[in-house]
């Protein structure tokens, strides 16, 4: 059995490395030829890479929020997932930031963020918070790995705050643009935080499930319970997200802008109703409600992830289609954009797999360790 898995995982690894190579090729090409390789235009400044970055960055923050919140609030059930979640967050965020960097016309001037900051710009705050946040995540992970409880304890408060701040500021980049109805308003920032948690849960569920599936015949009870617990939480949040979408539609219905027409029955209607709402929210919600098994939770999570991607696509790209004086333009992504995005996802999977092999992500975190210690001290209590 082990041999069989080893063979399979070698093939898997080879495929992943090829995808990463393709992504790197896309990046290299972008650095050489410039953004002529992207589908963005004068009218649509932000392309698929921004969609991808938003999607990945929210995913990373979401996982961090779950890990840190379960530590801060003492959800012991998820505690053993903490180290995995924090590592996964890093494994998602770092390739995500690389994706974003490809959309900067002058990456070589990134230092201008420090030398001439504009404190009014959400984009500046986004850069600053994500920068600090990556460092905090690293600190928390190292503390977990070296079992430094004190640092870990404080770090989890900071990463929780960092994750919420970074996510809502990322939303703020869009929320401040008054002439784009799909972006504008404080609700966008709040929705970004909500969708971060949802995306984070989905991603954590999928990775945890498959990690244990690959390494043991049967899912350990603790894992099975944790996944079921996560899916319950996800179901509640999916329902809240549905409410958010309902109100977004209702408020837009009253102003009836071209943007509303675009998602209501226009070019992006299928993507919005079918992709973001049905596939991403309604179907997984029903699935989790009707059958509570970890297998079902994983399928639901996969749907949720794709739905959340469509949601971000509709928001970021759809939000730019309507031009200042009402005409509606269109956008098509390019192969290079996709190569970079898919390469980043493959990068995440490889970084995570290396982590599983070398960094003991399954290790009990402190609470369990404490419980184990207590049990050992008082064997009669068992």
């Amino acid at each position: 059995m082990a041999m069989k898995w080893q063979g399979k995982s070698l093939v898997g690894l080879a495929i992943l490395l090829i995808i990463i190579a393709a992504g790197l090729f896309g990046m290299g090409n972008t650095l050489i030829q410039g953004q002529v390789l992207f589908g963005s235009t004068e009218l649509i400044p932000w392309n698929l890479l921004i969609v991808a970055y938003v999607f990945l960055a929210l995913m990373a923050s979401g996982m961090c929020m779950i890990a840190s919140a379960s530590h801060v609030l003492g959800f012991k059930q998820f505690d053993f997932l903490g180290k995995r979640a924090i590592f996964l967050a890093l494994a998602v965020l770092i390739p995500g930031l690389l994706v974003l960097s490809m959309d900067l016309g002058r990456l070589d001037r990134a230092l201008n963020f420090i030398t001439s900051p504009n404190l009014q710009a959400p984009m500046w705050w986004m850069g600053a918070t994500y920068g600090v946040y990556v460092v905090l995540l690293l600190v928390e992970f190292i503390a977990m790995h070296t079992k430094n409880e004190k640092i870990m304890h404080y770090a989890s408060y900071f990463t929780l705050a960092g994750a919420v701040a970074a996510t809502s500021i990322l939303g703020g980049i869009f929320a401040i643009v008054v002439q784009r109805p799909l972006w504008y308003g404080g609700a966008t920032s709040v929705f970004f935080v909500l969708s971060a948690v949802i995306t984070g849960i989905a991603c954590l569920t999928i990775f945890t499930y498959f990690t244990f599936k690959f390494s043991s015949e049967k899912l350990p009870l603790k894992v099975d319970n944790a996944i079921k617990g996560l899916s319950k939480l996800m179901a509640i949040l999916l329902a809240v997200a549905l409410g958010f979408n309902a109100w977004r539609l209702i408020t837009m219905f009253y102003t009836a802008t071209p943007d509303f027409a675009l998602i209501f029955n226009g070019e992006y209607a299928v993507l919005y109703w079918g992709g973001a709402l049905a596939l991403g929210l309604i179907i997984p919600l029903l699935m989790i409600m009707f059958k509570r098994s970890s297998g079902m939770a994983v399928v639901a999570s996969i749907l949720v992830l794709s739905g959340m991607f469509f949601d971000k696509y509709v928001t970021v790209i759809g939000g730019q289609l309507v031009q200042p004086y009402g005409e509606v333009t269109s956008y098509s992504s390019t192969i290079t954009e996709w190569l970079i995005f898919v390469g980043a996802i493959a990068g995440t999977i490889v970084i995570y797999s290396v982590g599983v092999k070398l960094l003991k992500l399954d290790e009990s975190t402190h609470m369990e360790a404490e419980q184990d210690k207590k049990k050992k001290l008082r064997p009669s209590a068992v």
Partner: protein
Amino acid sequence: MTNKNYAMTIDLQSCIGCSSCAVVCKNENNTDTGMNWMHFIKNESGTFPNVSYEYIPALCNHCDNAPCVKACPVTAMYKDENGLTLHDADKCIGCKACMASCPYGVISYNKKDPHDYWSQQESWSELSATPAEVQEKSGAKLPYYNPERDYNYEAIRYRGIVEKCQLCDHRLARDEQPYCVTRCPSEAMYVGDLNDPDDKIHQILSDDHKTLKDELGTKPKVFYVRNFK
């Protein structure tokens, strides 16, 4: 010396919709094909015979409350002391936050180095010179290169940054009107100083005027005077 507060007026009843302003701006500021610092909004409505047609020259409004300036993370888009919204080519990181937040769509992004046409080795006919030969003979990156733009801004911008109308600040600095203003055949445009009570602009603005999307609170400073409607 007190600072100025520049603003532009465009008389829509004088404007004949010839697009000269858009064309000459390209000459003055060395913009490439597809890059238009001065452009237009065209509205056609109704069905024949009850049709109406509207042509509005459109450029950066040098908004007093400019969203592009607020959104730029590295202060590459900034307000100068004379009320202009200017772009600093040396600071720009090409993040396009300004483009996403400008409600008027007047900022352009350089996806590639501009004017690469003039380095091509192929001519359109055997009898003519190749673009590269013309470039070499003229001794500039493009034969109609205007070195004056070099005064305080990259004369020809480059790949990876944005660009937009600077209200010809290089001309205003020596008390000349912007180039589009001087070349308008019907003298529809004028740039004046709102801070100077004796400036002709106040007289022009005593006519009925509007700004674009002023409901957004951007405080645009291109005033359209004497609309037909």
